[in-house]
């Protein structure tokens, strides 16, 4: 994902001289270094000062530039929430925050670097568009769409390599959920690296005669209500899956849509009300309940409730 982001920035930089990039001393990890290498005069390393980076990005946007500002997801919005609120969201400036190292799959760096609240924070800001791509192909597409659509964007990437769930012909459609698989018994609504886990879970569940419908919500805000409501109507049960706290992320947003428009049983695969710890990415996902196995368990539970 990160490599894909860096390469796409370079392409965009070639296409549009108004694209500028900022980083906060993490350009080797966020991969904005690829842009820095090609366009040194349009790259601004702000040092370890995220609040200042956000303000500079806002000033660039107010002067007609299209700034991409990157750091780890735990530091933006976490470290600079008020700056994002007042300098970007309130005046609706054309700043693109693309953060990497979302979630707990960051791994060994531990709690200080695990971003599990970022989506809740950023979705709370009026006017922000929030995208969580599922793989490298969708990342490239989403970054392109962010560059060409006016307004504040937040794109959240993760650290580890994730399996491709899309082919090269895929075209990201802003604000539209993607049907990854047709099914009739339950809908799994997944985001980010949980999409491949959902696909794996659905294959296994087929052997138990459970036919899963799978939606990838990559645009978390504004959410595709139509797709969610029709999935609820057609399958009668929903499981959400995200690499984020249970509160304030995908599950919360879907629950609000469902409660208002088409109430059906829902189960949530997400991090419970806790911080994680150091460990390998796969170990952490397993310990904190973010695997295909956890999705299968949630599907079985929700189907029971549906039957009851």
């Amino acid at each position, binding site marked *: 994902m990160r490599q894909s982001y860096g390469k796409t920035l370079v392409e965009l930089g070639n296409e549009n001289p108004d694209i*500028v990039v900022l980083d906060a001393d993490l350009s080797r990890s966020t991969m904005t270094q690829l842009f820095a290498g090609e366009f040194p*005069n*349009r790259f*601004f390393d*702000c*040092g370890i*000062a995220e*609040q*200042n*980076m*956000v*303000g*500079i*990005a*806002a*000033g*660039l*946007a*107010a*002067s*007609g*530039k299209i*700034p991409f500002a990157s750091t780890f997801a735990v530091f933006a919005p976490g470290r600079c929430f*008020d*700056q994002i*609120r*007042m*300098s970007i969201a*309130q*005046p*609706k400036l054309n700043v693109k925050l693309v953060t990497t190292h979302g979630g707990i799959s960051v791994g060994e760096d531990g709690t200080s670097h695990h971003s599990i609240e970022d989506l809740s924070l950023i979705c709370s800001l009026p006017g922000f568009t929030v995208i969580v791509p599922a793989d490298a192909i969708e990342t490239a597409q989403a970054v392109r769409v962010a560059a060409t659509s006016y307004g504040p964007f937040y794109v959240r990437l993760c650290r580890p390599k994730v399996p491709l769930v899309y082919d090269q012909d895929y075209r990201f459609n802003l604000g539209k959920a993607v049907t990854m698989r047709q099914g009739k018994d339950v809908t799994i609504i997944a985001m980010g690296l949980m999409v491949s886990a959902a696909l794996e879970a659905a294959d296994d569940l087929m052997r138990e005669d459970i036919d899963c419908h799978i939606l990838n919500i990559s645009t978390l805000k504004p959410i595709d209500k139509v797709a969610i409501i029709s999935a609820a109507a057609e399958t009668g049960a929903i499981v959400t899956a995200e690499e984020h706290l249970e509160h304030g992320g995908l599950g919360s947003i879907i629950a609000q849509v469902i409660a208002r428009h088409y109430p059906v049983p829902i189960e949530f695969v997400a991090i419970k009300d806790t911080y994680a710890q150091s460990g390998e990415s796969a170990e952490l996902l397993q310990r904190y309940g973010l695997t295909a196995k956890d999705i299968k368990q949630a599907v079985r539970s929700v189907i029971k409730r549906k039957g009851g």
Partner: protein
Amino acid sequence: MVTPVAPCQQWRLTVVYCRLLRHKPSDPQWSDRDRFVLSKGHAAPLLYAALAECGYFPVDELLTLRQMDSRLQGHTDRAVTPGVEMSAGALGQGLSFTIGITLAGRLNSQDYRAYVLLGDGECDEGQIWEGAMAAAHFKVDNLTAIVDNNRQQIDGWNRDVMNLDPFNSKWLAFGWHVIEVDGHDFTQLIDAFNQAKMVKGQPTVIIAHTIKGKGVSFMENNPYFHGKAPNAEEVEIALKELE
């Protein structure tokens, strides 16, 4: 918060707009305009009055200040007020924003200048010093910061609440060209603005020593009036003294 002592400083901002900035009130988004960023957003009424006098909107509209549906919000809002460059009010954010404006000007080979008005109390915020470091690092010599150095903040004198001294040396140490002026002296202010234009390779800060509530005997240097409106009797006395 309303800042009743601000109107006493009104003439200074109007002078800045009328005499020192290159701008077109008929075209607030003119790409080559000089930018004036009010970082201390609570001084919004001063800015509104200066903008109205320049013709950005009718002077009568000033009476709608802080009322429902007014374009003149309690703190500045760039989305609704013509001529307002930045939404401010959460202190400490204006310098960073202004750096972005100056970097864009440099990338575009535009010769506009950007000015940012900071409060001295506002310089308690860490982001100001992140910005101070970055402005010098990026050598934005098209940026001038002006600090309204009235030595007071809401809870009292700066030196008692959070000491900023030595203020001048802090900016010097961060790599800025520093000019100190009597903020109530037109000539000194204008000279400082012109001197800043000549400085190459580093940003300039004009530390304007001011007296809060200047010209109104009972408001001068009285932190009591920082965020408190005078009563009717006090207004009458103040207006007489300012005549």
